[in-house]
């Protein structure tokens, strides 16, 4: 187990290193750098000034030097400066973390609250009309673009209540603040709930087919108790895995939803920073996302190894 841990940890670092190289190189391929963007807002370009600012920002140095500066700083906890706001990158990123985390957390809770029970029902009632209905619903959940869903929700809110939950400074009242989290979270979570429901259903079906459940039924145990107590518990492992992965991959859904609802979170900041060619922000944000994914993967693997004796630890 110890050796496995060490090896697994090593691979994790290797992956993060790879991501850092890829993101660094890709950003340098992007046409137009931050200085072009700066000049864009001035409506002109002055080559002499451009060169001066590039030197000021260290963009004139060779790529390996720039890369080493970034990684060296990162290892010391120094993320560099945002080119746009001229504040430290950490000061820009930190206040946005809780905003996105709250949204993602609520979305995940919502997804589980909907996805798991419906998945179980769908599996238990396999091939009934209800099952088909739920399956169509979950498929549509995976098909509807979340930004469109968000727009529809906004349009619906305005049609019904004449107002809507969008972020502005100092929201008035607790109700509005709660709405501001719940509505976007439900929009993002809808897709995850569909995914979780599908997986719960197939995991449940798998387990329901197995011998001990049949035995339990044969022994005359109350069917509902069998379904929930025995089957669900055993089906949870793959479901937990997916929930873990989904937590990290919610980033995709957050990007568009934060844009639609005007939420000042990390995901929208990433898009804006890519547009602004604000390398320090983009690099560090991407590393943060990759770090989350890799850590969750790692934890899920460990959980698996600990919980399921069938898994060979050597793998």
């Amino acid at each position, binding site marked *: 187990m110890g050796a496995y841990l060490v090896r697994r940890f090593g*691979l994790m670092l*290797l*992956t*993060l290193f*790879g*991501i850092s190289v*890829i*993101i660094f190189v*890709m*950003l340098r*391929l*992007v*046409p137009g750098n931050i200085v072009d963007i700066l000049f864009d807002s001035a409506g002109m370009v002055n080559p002499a000034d451009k060169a001066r600012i590039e030197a000021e920002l260290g963009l004139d140095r060779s790529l390996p030097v720039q890369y080493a500066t970034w990684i060296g700083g990162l290892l010391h906890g120094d993320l560099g400066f945002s080119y746009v706001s001229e504040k430290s990158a950490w000061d820009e990123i930190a206040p946005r973390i809780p905003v996105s985390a709250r949204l993602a957390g609520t979305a995940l809770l919502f997804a589980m609250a909907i996805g798991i029970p419906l998945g179980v029902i769908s599996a238990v009632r396999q091939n009934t009309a209800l099952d*088909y209905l739920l*399956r*169509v619903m979950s*498929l*549509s959940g*995976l*098909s*509807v*673009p979340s*930004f*469109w869903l968000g*727009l*529809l929700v*906004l*349009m619906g809110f*305005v049609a019904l209540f004449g107002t809507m939950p969008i972020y502005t400074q100092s929201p008035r009242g607790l109700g509005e603040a709660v709405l501001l989290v719940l509505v976007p979270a439900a929009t993002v979570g809808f897709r995850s709930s569909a995914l979780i429901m*599908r997986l719960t*259903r*197939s995991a449940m*079906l798998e387990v329901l087919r197995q011998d001990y459940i049949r035995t339990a039924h044969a022994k005359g145990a109350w069917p509902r108790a069998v379904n929930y107590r025995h089957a669900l518990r055993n089906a949870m492992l793959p479901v937990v895995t997916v929930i873990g992965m989904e937590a*990290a*991959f919610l*980033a*995709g859904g957050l*990007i*568009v939803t934060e*844009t*639609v609802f005007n939420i000042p979170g990390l995901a929208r900041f*990433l*898009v804006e920073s*890519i*547009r602004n060619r604000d390398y320090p922000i*983009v690099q560090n944000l*991407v590393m943060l*996302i*990759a770090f989350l*994914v*890799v850590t969750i*993967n790692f934890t899920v693997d460990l959980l698996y190894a600990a919980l399921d004796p069938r898994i060979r630890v050597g793998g």
Partner: protein
Amino acid sequence: MLHLFKRLAVLSRLARKYPLGAAGAVIMTLFVAAALLADAISPFSPLTTNPALSLARPGGLHLFGADVMGRDILSRILHGARISLAVGIFSTLIGGVFGVIIGIASGFIGGWFDLVVQRLTDILQALPVLVLALVMSAALGPSLPNTILAISIPLIPYVSRVIRANTLGLRELAFVEAAEATGMTRWRIAIRHILPNTLAPLIVISTAQLGSTILTEASLSFLGLGVPEPYPSWGRMLSDSAAEYMRTAPWLVIFPGLAISLAVFGTNMLGDALRDILDPRQRT
């Protein structure tokens, strides 16, 4: 003639057994037809502007209404099917071809090659697809081919993972071992035996990915980084109208979104059914 009847009989049996899949197939057929015949069936040109029709309501000659420049929405959606389908098919194809080559090679050659490929796959999979596609399309610049490329690259590791596992499974099988025993070269075994047996999982994963590539394109275009004007991309249509006319002309938001959802829904239903038919082990 008899042959045809037989085929139809098989199809109708399948459709009865997999009603959702059949519905998906119908939607997909309509979608492909719209894309191929867009020029013939569109009531208007998707690009011609007309001041008199600016923000025309749905109904009459313009079934889905017109956008701010008086361009017919139905015609733009029909032509938009081309963009979505082109992005969907080509990025799935590129992702699929490279994924298969890399997956088979990795599973078959093994050793250090496999190790390197596995690590690269890890790296590419450590980022959500949309994040990776976002950075890539920014790096490449907005255009149709670049969007396809930006979406297909994150796809490669997903395909190669599945194909590699499949290849490893096949290597253990009796007929491959038999072929090795008769002295067939590894490349011939790969092409004669492994590749054909890769088809089923490839079809399953490709249909599943087709829907998500369409969604990714729509999201990228919505964020302004995907397929640029004047191509009537559904995501782009949505992003412009969402910014301006969400309230005054909601049909500009509703119809393109419906088109995206329906197309993805079709591929998802078809994908589910194909998986059940071709790969019974993974049934849901």
